């Protein structure tokens, strides 16, 4: 018998194993169907093109507006992915099955959040180079990449929680952006300002307050989501 799991490191605890199992399930399902990533990607490309026509992004306007255009794209594509990832759990009663598993329920949250984060980072990893090429602007800036990751973490943390809420309502996917955007304003403002700070090569002292907000937002909302997820899936 072939032992395929030998090389994979064994997670330390039962909790970590549950988190990894859920993430792994999502990733391998996506690897086979590719429906979530492909729609997120095509959607992002379309948004970038619409920005070109809507804002007439000439060379001058580009520098100031790039960070904003990117984050609008990420935010919209993000809601698409978040909706889909929770809808598949709800549709065939998968969520109920997961809830029956004898693990702490926050493990489900972290599992879903990590897989959502992976999807979002993949989309960003493709959108950034494409944007660079299409608009002839260099986005390979370590600072910008760090901000993108920090912003995505906060956005996905609160987004995963709200997706778990909205999927259980009558209006479902329509509701998610309405619930998510007003709460995600701090993360979007801070991410846009920090990104454009790095792109315009501003002094670090002007960027660091925004990084602080991003880190605080990430920590607060990861902690709160961890604490309240139980109430969201409780039956």
């Amino acid at each position: 018998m072939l032992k395929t799991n030998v090389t994979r490191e064994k997670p330390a605890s039962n909790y970590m194993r549950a988190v990894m199992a859920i993430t792994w399930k999502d990733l391998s399902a996506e690897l086979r169907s590719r429906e979530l990533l492909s729609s997120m990607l095509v959607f992002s490309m379309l948004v970038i093109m619409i920005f070109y026509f809507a804002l007439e992004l000439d060379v001058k306007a580009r520098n100031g507006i790039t960070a904003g255009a990117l984050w609008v794209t990420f935010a919209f594509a993000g809601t698409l992915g978040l909706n889909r990832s929770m809808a598949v759990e709800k549709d065939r009663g998968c969520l109920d099955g997961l809830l029956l598993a004898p693990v702490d329920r926050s493990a489900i949250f972290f599992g879903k959040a990590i897989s959502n984060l992976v999807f979002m980072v993949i989309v960003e990893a493709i959108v950034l180079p494409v944007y660079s090429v299409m608009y002839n602007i260099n986005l390979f800036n370590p600072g910008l990449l760090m901000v993108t990751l920090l912003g995505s973490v906060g956005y996905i943390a609160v987004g995963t929680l709200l997706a778990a809420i909205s999927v259980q309502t009558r209006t479902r996917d329509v509701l998610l952006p309405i619930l998510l955007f007003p709460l995600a304003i701090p993360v979007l403002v801070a991410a846009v300002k920090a990104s454009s700070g790095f792109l315009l090569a501003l002094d670090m002292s002007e960027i660091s307050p925004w990084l602080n907000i991003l880190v605080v937002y990430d920590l607060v909302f990861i902690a709160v989501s961890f604490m309240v997820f139980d109430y969201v899936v409780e039956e």
Partner: protein
Amino acid sequence: MSPQPKILKVLNVLSASLVLAAFVMAMFYAPLEKVMGEVQRVFYFHVATAWVGMLGFIAAAVVAIIYLRTHDMKWDIIGVAAVEISLIFFGITIVLGSIWARPAWGTWWTWEPRLTTAAILEMVYLAYLLLRQGIEDPERRARFGAVYTLLGGLSVPLTFVSIRLFRTIHPVIIGNGGSETMAMTGSMVATMLFSIAAFSVVFITLFWHRIRLGQFANQVENLKMKVSM
């Protein structure tokens, strides 16, 4: 259906007369502001309504935590009452602020931190009401509502901080003549404090009424269930 308790009846009359008195004070007792003129009188009600909105916002967040701990439907009714009052009063605050801002700042709207935060808070409340509308099961509606108000209670202060930072890094062109630089005389301070006190009583009265309304709605719901069974 129980009739209004005696204290509530007293509060009804008291709030009406206090608001009327605050209005008279703002119009006739408070002196004319030199720079801004008559329109400055809207400021007294503006501050007072913002205060009530703030009370509602804090009450909603606190009540949300209590609900999540106790799972007692009573707290859900109180939470909705707080959110609705806060929604209405912040709405009034924004409108009054606009009336004042037009002559004072030369524009109906500026992206000033307090203004913007109030507007985003209104969006949070509207999202909250839409969320509740989409859920039939009362227990789940209460649970999700509480979670969402709790998240809002955490995110809105961060929004305020981030927008304030947004404005300080970029120079503020209009809005420097805001309330910070407004020198107030004794009678102006008195009028402002009186308005705040008057609207606090209004808040208590409305809060009470709205909670009663929520209880009645619950009773009606239960009666309907009984009939249909």
